[in-house]
């Protein structure tokens, strides 16, 4: 198994709102990535790599391809966005754990905020293959940030969209849409799949800004839905040695995102 590699860029796509997708030709010697895992991608103009979650992994005629989706937020991601087809990018991974899936749970609630779509889209493709019933909540600030709406609609039993500018979907925050949708489910649809057995049938996956995740988890946990979140942090090494990528649970416990995460049981992080 090779963990460090230089992979060839086969496709670069620039979306609106500074989102970029980078598709690389994968090396069979490398471990197959799972949803939630990330790689360190090394820009040419920075010292450290940038942690970027896997957005998709697919095969065409047995050849593997990996796709990363990121937003340009600084000089590292800007540099990565300037890669062209045929260029090589140094990277190491896959790093960290992945979103767990369950044999006995077949209803998945996915809640993505902004660039949180990157790992959750990948997760949705896997859950779709496993024939989960998918309820996808996707919120962004500006409507032009929305990505993959058609594919999400195809995979999901229900797709909920919110935009803060109100140009598409429901105007407002995804946390509010999520809260009202869950409450409606619980109050009106007694026989809804989601809440058989007090939500034991459903699992919730959340990725987005900290405050959004905390609010979503408050709702999902209050309905006793098993919830997993994917956390972001400043990551220097991605190898578990710099100890720089700590996050703190509400109870004061420290976790290292690249070793114990990036996916955490929401109860570990938000319980006092």
């Amino acid at each position, binding site marked *: 198994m090779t963990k460090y590699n230089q992979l060839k860029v086969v496709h670069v796509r620039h979306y609106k709102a500074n989102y970029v997708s980078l598709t690389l030709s994968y090396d069979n010697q490398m471990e197959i990535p799972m949803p939630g895992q990330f790689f360190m991608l090394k820009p040419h103009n920075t010292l450290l790599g940038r942690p970027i979650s896997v957005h998709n992994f697919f095969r065409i005629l047995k050849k593997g391809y990996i796709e990363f989706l990121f937003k340009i937020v600084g000089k590292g991601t800007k540099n990565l966005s300037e890669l062209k087809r045929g260029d090589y990018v140094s990277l*190491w991974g896959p790093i960290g754990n992945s979103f767990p899936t369950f044999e006995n749970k077949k209803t998945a609630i996915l809640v993505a905020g902004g660039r949180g779509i990157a790992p959750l889209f990948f997760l949705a493709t896997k859950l779709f293959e496993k024939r989960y019933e998918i309820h996808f909540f996707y919120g962004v600030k500006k409507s032009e940030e929305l990505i993959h709406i058609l594919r999400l609609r195809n995979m999901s039993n229900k797709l909920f969209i919110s935009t803060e500018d109100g140009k598409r979907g429901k105007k407002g925050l995804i946390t509010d849409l999520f809260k009202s949708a869950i409450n409606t489910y619980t109050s009106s649809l007694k026989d809804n799949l989601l809440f058989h057995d007090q939500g034991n049938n459903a699992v919730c996956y959340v990725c987005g800004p900290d405050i959004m995740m905390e609010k979503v988890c408050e709702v999902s946990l209050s309905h006793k839905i098993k919830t997993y979140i994917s956390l972001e942090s*400043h990551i220097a090494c991605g190898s*578990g*040695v*710099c100890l720089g990528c700590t996050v703190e649970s509400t109870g004061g416990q420290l976790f290292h995102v690249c070793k114990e995460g990036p996916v955490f049981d929401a109860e570990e992080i938000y319980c006092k």
Partner: protein
Amino acid sequence: MNELKVDISTLRLKNPIMSASGTFGFGYEFMEYYDTSVLGAIVCKGISKEPRRGNYGNRIAEIDGGIINSIGLENPGISEFLEKILPMIKTINTAYIVNILGSDLDEYLYLAEKLSELPRVDAIEVNISCPNVKAGGLSFGKDINLIKDLTRRLRDIFPKPIIIKVSPDLPYIEIAKICRNEGIDAITCINTIQSLLIDVEKKTFFFNNLYGGLSGPAIKPIALRVVYQVAKEVGIPVIGCGGIMSYKDAVEFFMAGATAVQIGTANFTNPLSAYEILKDLMSYLEKNKIHSVSELRIW
């Protein structure tokens, strides 16, 4: 065939490339990338008597030419190190140097004594220069009388090589002289340099603990200065460390007078760095028909 072996007093290293403490875990973490036994020595993450949880809040930031960390010496403590970690490094077939740190004299002595009888531990590196903790660290290293006491008593307790790690924030020449007189075997120059980072947007200091330690290419010229001064003026073996990102940087340190070098921040920029620097250094020596890195010294 060139001779890569170097001696740190009684400790013979198969080559002069080591990992720097705090950038390489305990040595097995990088086994996913390459067999770390190829390195001349592994210097592990600093160990204290009790476990330390490290600092809250932001811990690491990249700046132009370097990184600043304020990890705060997070480590599992000596008991867990002895029980759980030491068995895991048995398969690493190279010299193993344990970095130790304390809040006071007794803690350093306690750690040295615990490690003194272990066959797997080839040497200790004593951190008296951590810039981002409140107790111990730099404040300890600045007390010359304390350093005199520490080095003398460590020498009594620990029979294998003792290395003291200094930073330019300390009176390093004076410390190196004390070390030489007390029979300390080598000095690691340099630890990270105490730094301050400000978050302009939030109008706050970036680190909860205020200060961080700067490492990476930005500190290389300073590290070279300290290596040169300590090696030349004090005449004690020096392990060079600070911003070595390529074999050329390593060669500069040997030219300045280092006996061996440590690779730190480069391990973060590319996990294969230490291995690649070793390989490239070998080719360089071969190509230039240099038989030993000691021949590189330019004074």
